[in-house]
């Protein structure tokens, strides 16, 4: 008899569990409680045994721990082999991954091996009366929402970070922690070291932090860059700053510069001239920070912060460090 168990692949880095795992556990717990089944976690890495208890506290009934030096650095083949063996043994109905670099490299390999259906970047999972999961995922670069279903068992999904809610943490919750034998798979990829983060072009960046005339001098771009780094984004500038030679034209955001549509745009001391607005108004989320609340950019912003950029930006950098 096919169970309705949920298996969650838990991503971790240096023993620290990626918080998306707790969101997947939140949904897993909800599904398992409705269907009377179990929520299991697969935790792979090296020196990660202690993290298993945290997963139980967030709702896992069972945590399968694969702890071995050979798993210290993520390798999609090694993780796939171990995960597939587990899935074939416990035969869950659903397998959830985070839609992260790791999840996106790993899940299709698992799906292809199992010849199972995989849907990516899900933002919602709704249990149907027939026990299947209706999955919602953006398509066409977010212009449409597709509602998809899967008939294979298991059904695999990768889920967007922050799309689901983590449940409450309860350290007195009970769960099983099982150590698994690790299949050692030699990685074909030799890691040479940390790579220099290649700066994304402003057209392709997910996050753009754009400075405007509120910036008092060219040197202050260092502060803007620190905020951009903290947000995982790139630095942009309005036309006057480029014309004054404070930064190169590659960074110019606007109709005469580059039109940008990042997931997050932060205007730092930007008033919002018409040609600038035309260059960024399709951004996913618009944040404006300015001491003058009457600026045009505030009219199209999701979040307008009225304040001194030289106070707000350093505060944000500090908060983001945590």
């Amino acid at each position, binding site marked *: 008899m096919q169970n309705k168990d949920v298996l969650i692949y838990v991503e971790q880095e240096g023993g620290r569990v990626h918080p998306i795992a707790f969101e997947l556990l939140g949904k897993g717990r909800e599904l398992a409680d409705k269907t009377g089944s179990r929520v299991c976690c697969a935790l792979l890495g090296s020196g990660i045994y202690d993290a298993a208890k945290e997963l139980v506290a967030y709702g896992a009934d069972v945590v399968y721990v694969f702890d071995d030096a050979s798993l210290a650095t993520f390798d999609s083949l090694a993780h796939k082999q171990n995960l597939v063996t587990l899935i074939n043994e416990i035969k869950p109905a659903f397998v959830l991954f985070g839609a992260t670099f790791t999840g996106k490299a*790993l899940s299709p390999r698992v799906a292809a091996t199992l010849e199972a259906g995989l849907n990516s970047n899900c933002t919602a999972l709704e249990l149907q009366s027939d026990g299947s999961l209706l999955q919602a995922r953006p398509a066409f670069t977010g212009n449409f929402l*597709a509602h998809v279903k899967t008939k294979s068992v298991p059904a695999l999904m990768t889920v967007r970070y922050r799309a689901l809610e983590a449940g409450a943490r309860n350290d007195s919750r009970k769960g099983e922690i099982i150590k698994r034998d690790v299949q050692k798979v030699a990685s074909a990829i030799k890691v040479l070291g940390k790579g220099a983060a290649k700066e994304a072009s402003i057209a392709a960046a997910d996050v753009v932090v754009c400075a405007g005339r509120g910036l008092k001098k060219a040197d202050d771009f260092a502060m803007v860059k620190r905020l951009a780094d903290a947000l995982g984004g790139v630095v942009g500038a309005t036309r006057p700053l480029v014309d004054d030679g404070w930064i190169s034209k590659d960074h110019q955001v606007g109709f005469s510069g580059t039109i940008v549509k990042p997931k997050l745009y932060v205007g730092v001391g930007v008033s919002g001239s018409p040609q600038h607005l035309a260059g960024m108004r399709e951004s996913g989320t618009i944040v404006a920070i300015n001491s003058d609340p009457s600026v045009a950019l505030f009219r199209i912003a999701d979040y307008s912060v009225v304040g001194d950029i030289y106070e707000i930006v350093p505060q944000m950098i500090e908060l983001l460090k945590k």
Partner: protein
Amino acid sequence: MHIIVLAKQVPDIEKVKFLAGSNRVDRKSADAEINPFDLNAVEAAQQMKANLGATVTVLSMGPASAEAVLREAIARDADRGILLTDDAFAGADTLATAYTLAAAIRKLGAFDLILCGEKTVDGDTGQIGPAVAERLGITLLPFVSQITEATADKIVAVIETSAGSLNVEAAFPLLITGTKELNTPRLPTLKDKLRARKAEVEKWTAADLSDADASKFGAAGSPTWVESITVPPEKKRKGEVLKGEGSANQLVAALDKAGLLKG
């Protein structure tokens, strides 16, 4: 050296509409183009061919109109363009698509490198590259943002991972999925573009993949399907104004809740 590039034809994302009340794209609503991420893969192949000498085969699965994508690649020095087109391939989800592409690649014989884009701008799944690598049993290098060095038997590259950018090295055969940062695709010359218009594009049907299991092609081989498509409501700006002492705090919390901060 033999390089295979996987490319897909996609509609112009900004303009495309769906046929009223259905899950199918209204092909008249927007022009079709080569998936922008695949254009980066084509450029990477072009560079490697110039530096190392290689034959480049471009492969695409789609309707007859997808021939245009292969011509784009031929205009950019691809030696051979093959379109997998057959009603039997239609309705394929990523599992069936990757299965079909892998079957075609096996038929192509020996290769050193497969290049494809990180994802398509219509499907947005990012699954094809890793799934094809799995089917073929070759090394997967996903999210490559830079090919630092390519020789006759290996690649040194920068990959993007959850742990940041890493410098890595891997031997052929291997499959690379490239990010938008991989390179800046060049403009073809008019001569190359006109030559590509007249070039031969091979068309393969299900019958040409006789070694494969036909029940794994198309809709028949697809365990996932789209029930319905909805248009998200027109985005209204929140217009939240934050002032005073805790405004930086409130802003960071709001961005975190919206999933906009680095994980």
